């Protein structure tokens, strides 16, 4: 969307790749996640447009830049700078054993619902989130449906005749 590729200072020192529609996609270790986002916020990224989680358990192919250790889970955050009219995306790798990452709630309160949704459907925990409860599924639901080891849960389609005389 922008012709020249603007440099994002906050991403210096981290692995980045290009992707259509965004200025850069950065791979940030989870220890630095919050501080990098804070730096981005200071750098005129006014809005967090999206947070979502991906479970890479059974992915066929997946290319990551040098030095990024692939883990099962990934949190993908899209930030938008309205004044510079660019987007950036951050991908954070999270291990299966402890899929926890810092919440962005303090920086962007608008991520509240998105993080809850990610927790609900993918089962990623956000440390510091004010109210991490299920948002879409009933409270007593077990499991996280968007994980790849969770089946789609369909029932086989049966064709049955109408009971009784017509």
């Amino acid at each position: 969307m922008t012709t020249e590729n603007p440099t994002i200072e906050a991403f210096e020192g981290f692995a980045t790749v290009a992707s259509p529609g965004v200025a850069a996609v950065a791979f940030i270790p989870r220890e630095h996640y919050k501080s990098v986002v804070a730096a981005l916020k200071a750098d005129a990224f006014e809005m967090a447009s999206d947070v979502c989680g991906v479970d890479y358990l059974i992915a066929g192919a997946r290319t990551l830049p040098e030095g990024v250790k692939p883990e099962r889970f990934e949190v993908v955050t899209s930030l938008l700078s309205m004044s510079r009219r660019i987007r950036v995306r951050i991908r954070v790798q999270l291990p299966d054993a402890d899929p926890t990452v810092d919440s962005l709630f303090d920086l962007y309160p608008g991520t509240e619902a998105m993080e809850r949704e990610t927790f609900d459907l993918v089962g990623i925990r956000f440390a510091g989130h004010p109210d991490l409860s299920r948002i879409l599924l009933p409270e007593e639901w077990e499991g996280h449906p968007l994980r790849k080891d969770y089946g789609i849960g369909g029932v086989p389609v049966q064709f049955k005749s109408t009971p009784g005389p017509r």
Partner: protein
Amino acid sequence: MVIDENITTVVRPLWPTEETSEGSQELFPRKLTDPAELGREVGSVLRLPEGPTLDPTQIDIERSDDETMIINMGPQHPSTHGVLRLMLELDGEVVLRTKPIIGYLHTGMEKQAEALSFIQGSTNVTRMDYLAPLHNELVFSLATEALLGVEMPRRATYIRMLMTELNRISSHLMWMATNGMDVGSTSMMIYGFREREMILSFFEKTTGLRMNHNYIRPGGVAADLPDGWEDDVEVICNTVEARSYEYDDLLTGQAIFRDRMVGIGNLTAEEALALSVTGPLLRSTGVPWDLRRTMPYLAFDEVDFDVIVGTYGDNFDRYSIRLNEIRESVKIVRQLLANMPSGDYRVQDRKVTPPPRGRIDSSMEALIHHFKVFTEGFAVPEGEVYVAIESPRGELGCYLASDGGPKPYRMHIRGPSFVNLQALPLLMRGGLLADAVTVISSVDPVMGEVDR
């Protein structure tokens, strides 16, 4: 925040207790609520950490439960626009706290998308935002095409613009109708549906269905515009434009309508940005942010239109924005009508495009190819992409990750209504219960998209 030791606060289970769920979705009496959480909810799930409303001294934690009342509204309620459920704490008629509870229409579409190929995907996404189905198809198709790296023919792009703009008009008309119903103006409801029907019959002519069209697909659109479409579109433009002035006469100056809209549900630009609110809700606060203009997709940089912004961020601003966006969309449609290029309506790329109907009858090759495209689908190169467009409700985004197979590895839709709903507690706070209905209506949530 200092709490009197004598008040026993029963803290409900907080993070982390069990594997499945922490906290609770519902609103609890003040006594049963953890003080920090109460603070946030009074600041009203506003959840702006630095917001002035969060001044702890302002929060009346010790207000006894006898004075207030928690009521439940929905999920089956006529004015919650579907199956939105709200829990409200009221002091008499005044709303103190609000908590939207959603998920009553959770359809598992993101999971379903992983089981459907890319070519079937738009059948799935079109059922999310059922008032603007073509926008959903568009964002999914754009994301797929970004991964495929194919270039659209100009006619396909223009047809997409035409259809989505008409869809914006029909969506806003529907909003005018339901909003009319919510404020008690039944005539507006009848009029809104009447005009919308006109657009729907054009859609039916073009796509075969009144809603949930599956018309915009990865690789172009499903069919060319029907013969004589210019006349139909011309009639739609003339009628809708003329009628939009009738709505003006009917509502804009009307005292009762103004009483219910002006100064109700206020939002400031800072709050809107912090809460990631987009669309008419954001523009009503005076931020001129419309993705068609600021980050153009399709060919919106080639058409001339105005971005409508409000000043006060109240219900009335949102009403005027939507009414005027109908006129702006008519303006865009007129330009598209005049400049519609000729050419292909889908890419001529053997990989993504099924062969034309005529060739299937004559050639075995074509038949096999057609069969393969529709049963197996096409492989999409590995990668991930986020594409956003301006739907009638705000930024509609699609995050698509492919692992090189014919099905999306992960598809995530950022629904604008889902995010916009977070502003609801803030809009309602301190208002009257009777205004709650108009506030919900002015946010224009479509539950299909909120819950997906």
